[in-house]
């Protein structure tokens, strides 16, 4: 025991410094050797090397049952996100209560914003008798306390397994006057054992539209000039939805976002807590039936919803998280085609500026190899943008990716000489990606915060461009869509590349001849 303490009031050591002090290092060693009964360092090193091998990769890819570090969540969180994009809407999750605590936490950790949703708090008795009483009491309490304009009901897997019937339960609750008879309570069954959060998003949007648009087919509804747009589950929604509205303003067209979380997930700090803010209003949602067309920004988030819109006589168009020059071109051309208005000169100017920026930096992107993972639509959009930059997407992976998705990715890769070394991996997870990166190295990984473990293990730098981003702040406030969004994405990638070069050239007298002032 030395008398000098590491910790002090003058300079308070945080966990990342404190535990590196010699007294702690010695303590860790004692714990390890005397009490942990772990494997020898040699054995750990041997197995560690083995996990990086082709042999391990083969075993890893032969997995049929266990899923390790997937890139997907379950349906209800997607449904909750979708509902929170409507004005004054309180998500009501029917089933076990812990789920809601998890969804709220997850969304809050990404957006750094409050996230409001209630649970019907079903327990063992409800598992036996069904959750009708929980629905009746729950709707009454939620309505009285939180004064929503709409309550959107979704389910946890518990309620799905016991077979609770939302339509019947909600009708019953209304009969018991939990909420007024004309109070909107749209719903969606969102079983966690089917699909993922993007399917939950789809189900909830369809549930809400069904509530206001009616269920019968209605081809002869007179159509307006309005275009609806469904963003899909998007961690950059705050920046992106605002960017879309700005683009619509430049165009002078009536673009109605269905489920717009941009204000709800970005409220100001001015002394007043807003439980609800912004979002698509009920009136706008009703009116949206009469729009001439509905655009989906994320095909795999809206499979059923777009079909529903089609049945209502709307023209539909789908994108896969369009990013970059061509991605944005396609979106704008579609808006021009649907509205009959030309792409405005101001946006053409923005396009030119983006292309100029890409040209200025192309030397640093050309031929760089990337791994990309995330939701299916994000992976597609990102892959196409990378190809356009002269970069090479190598491993493209999505746990929610289907065979159809793999073909879509392959088609994008085939269309460019920069796609020659690329392959899509649908239904695979980040432990598969670890094997892929160890056996076929890339220069950068594009994904979310969970990718930091891949970065640590493989030493390949990570660029965070999709949900969830827990360990970096405020990126979601900047768009990734549109020409402005593409510029943001480009800068984020370039910054990481430059930081990486600097970090690898900063040893005095050894590598710092390349520590260039000008790059």
């Amino acid at each position, binding site marked *: 025991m030395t008398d000098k*303490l590491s*910790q002090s*009031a*003058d300079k*308070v050591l945080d966990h990342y410094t*404190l535990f590196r002090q010699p007294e*702690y290092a010695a303590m860790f060693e*004692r714990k390890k050797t*005397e*009490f942990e*009964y772990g*494997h020898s360092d040699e*054995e*750990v090193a041997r*197995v*560690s090397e083995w996990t990086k091998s082709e042999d391990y990769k083969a075993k*890893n890819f032969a*997995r049929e*049952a*266990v*899923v*390790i*570090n*997937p890139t997907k*969540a379950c349906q209800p969180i997607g449904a909750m996100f979708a509902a929170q994009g409507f004005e004054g809407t309180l998500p009501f999750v029917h089933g*076990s*209560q*812990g789920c809601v*605590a998890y*969804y*709220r936490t997850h969304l*809050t950790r990404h957006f750094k914003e*409050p*996230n*409001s949703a*209630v*649970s*019907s*708090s*079903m*327990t063992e008795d*409800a*598992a036996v008798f069904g959750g009708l009483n929980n629905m009746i*009491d*729950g709707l*009454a*309490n939620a309505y*009285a*306390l939180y004064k929503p304009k709409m309550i959107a009901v979704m389910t*946890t*897997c518990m309620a799905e397994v016991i077979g609770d019937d939302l339509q019947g339960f909600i009708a019953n609750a209304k009969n018991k006057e939990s909420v007024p008879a004309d109070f909107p309570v749209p719903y969606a069954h969102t079983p966690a*054992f*089917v699909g993922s959060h993007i399917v939950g998003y789809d189900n909830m949007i369809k549930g809400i539209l069904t509530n206001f648009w009616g269920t019968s087919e209605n081809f002869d509804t007179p159509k307006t000039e309005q275009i609806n747009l469904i963003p899909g589950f998007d961690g950059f929604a705050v920046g992106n939805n605002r960017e879309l509205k700005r683009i619509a303003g430049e165009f002078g067209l009536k673009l109605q976002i269905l489920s717009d979380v941009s204000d709800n997930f970005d409220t*100001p700090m*001015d*002394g007043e*807590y807003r439980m609800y803010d912004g979002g698509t209003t009920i009136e706008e949602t009703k009116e949206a039936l009469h729009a001439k067309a509905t655009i989906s920004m994320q095909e795999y988030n809206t499979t059923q919803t777009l079909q529903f819109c089609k049945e209502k006589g709307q023209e539909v168009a789908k994108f896969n998280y369009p990013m970059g020059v061509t991605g944005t071109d396609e979106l704008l051309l579609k808006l021009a085609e649907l509205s009959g208005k030309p792409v405005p000169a101001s946006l053409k100017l923005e396009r030119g500026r983006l292309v100029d920026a890409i040209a200025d930096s192309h030397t640093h992107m050309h031929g760089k190899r990337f791994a990309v993972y995330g939701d299916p639509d994000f992976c597609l959009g990102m892959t196409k943008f990378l190809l356009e930059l002269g970069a090479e997407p190598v491993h493209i992976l999505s746990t929610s990716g289907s065979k159809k998705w793999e073909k879509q990715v392959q088609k994008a890769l085939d269309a460019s000489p920069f796609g020659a070394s690329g392959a899509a991996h649908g239904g695979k997870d980040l*432990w598969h990606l670890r094997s892929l990166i160890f056996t076929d190295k890339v220069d950068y990984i594009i994904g979310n915060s969970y990718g930091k*473990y891949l970065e640590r*293990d493989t030493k390949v730098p990570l660029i965070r461009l999709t949900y969830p981003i827990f360990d970096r702040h405020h990126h979601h406030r900047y768009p990734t869509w549109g020409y402005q969004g593409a510029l943001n994405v480009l800068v984020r990638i370039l910054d990481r590349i430059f930081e990486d070069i600097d970090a690898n050239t900063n040893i005095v007298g050894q590598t710092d001849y390349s520590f260039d002032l000008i790059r």
Partner: protein
Amino acid sequence: MSLSENTTVDVKNLVNEVLEAYPEKSRKRRAKHLNVLEAEAKDCGVKSNVKSIPGVMTIRGCAYAGSKGVVWGPIKDMIHISHGPVGCGYYSWSGRRNYYIGDTGVDSWGTMHFTSDFQEKDIVFGGDKKLHKVIEEINELFPLVNGISIQSECPIGLIGDDIEAVARAKSAEIGKPVIPVRCEGFRGVSQSLGHHIANDAIRDWVFEKTEPKAGFVSTPYDVTIIGDYNIGGDAWSSRILLEEIGLRVIAQWSGDGTMAELENTPKAKVNLIHCYRSMNYIARHMEEKFNIPWMEYNFFGPSQIAESLRKIAALFDDKIKENAEKVIARYQPMVDAVIAKYKPRLDGKKVMIYVGGLRPRHVVDAYHDLGMEIIGTGYEFAHNDDYQRTPHYVKEGTLIYDDVTAFELEKFVEAMRPDLVASGIKEKYVFQKMGLPFRQMHSWDYSGPYHGYDGFAIFARDMDLAINNPVWGVMKAPF
């Protein structure tokens, strides 16, 4: 600058006003969970550990969160399977900052997410066959794993899977402990039952089926740390003090813990419990079965640390007692410097606490050490024995709220205007928007450790940076 706008709130009246918003049936139920602490009360006078009311926005979690998220998850050399659909494991993946030392993916798995990812066919036909395969694949890909736990999600108990049979069969096959845990989220009323179920699983599937390691040599100074999840390194900044007074910490439950440490625990001379709520069950069991006494201690803030070190030392010989005094004296100058630096900046500041486990009472004296005052506190998932232990820490007139709803907490805070709210991530931004300094007291707001003397310095610094940041001063626009 103090943000206290109202120091003379009629708290009793406030409770009644807030309850007014509820429909009658719920109002009656909620009224039993809210109280103002009376002088010389034996407990807090609130009902606890009962079902949350539907639709009110409880802050509670579930049994799975209590078992996988709290008790089992931190055991680093095991793989914990989130058995069922993909979500539960996804949301709880790396969520609690249970620090550990190890080669993740090779000999430790604490920040990874393993799931059987149930599909519809698993619900319809049962998931036992898949579970067999999951365990086989884990054992092949992670040969250094020292045990596997099966953390049941809601559907498991509803579809009638026999995970115990799978666990027995697979354990025999792979020659490692495989532990089934019936912590389905719908069981019980909060994460609390999950703690209990997890404790029982250790009792039945570790203590009953394994032995302490051959070659483990006991000493008269062997203790354990029970109920410290090593959030931000808490168990480490505690362990170092116990070692300094001459004790040997043979097991950490469960932060930075290992299977061997669980197995060797019955060799302890005394079990030292920090989080009573989540691990008193196993301590009581060991007392009954192995005759090991247990003692609660509190390593938040210098007053409680010194008291606890003396209480712990009193269980041992004079050498340990002398060491305890030496250790307290050794750290005293640092403590004095921390208090001298931060107390003037924090003196008289009012705090409202709402968290789980032991913290709604255990952290109170750490605030007192800095001259701060607790005007409200409450537990997410306490039982009556927690509320009996609380009056020891807080004073008459403190507002007590059990399983508080988001609505109630918002109204209470709005009316009482504390200088700091100490609660969780779901509450954080609500109160910051209201202009109130906030610290997350589950995750230490990504800081920590807060336990021990080293942790106290960080705690004091963090409370200061929350309360005295200039951002609160620019909240109101000048126009």
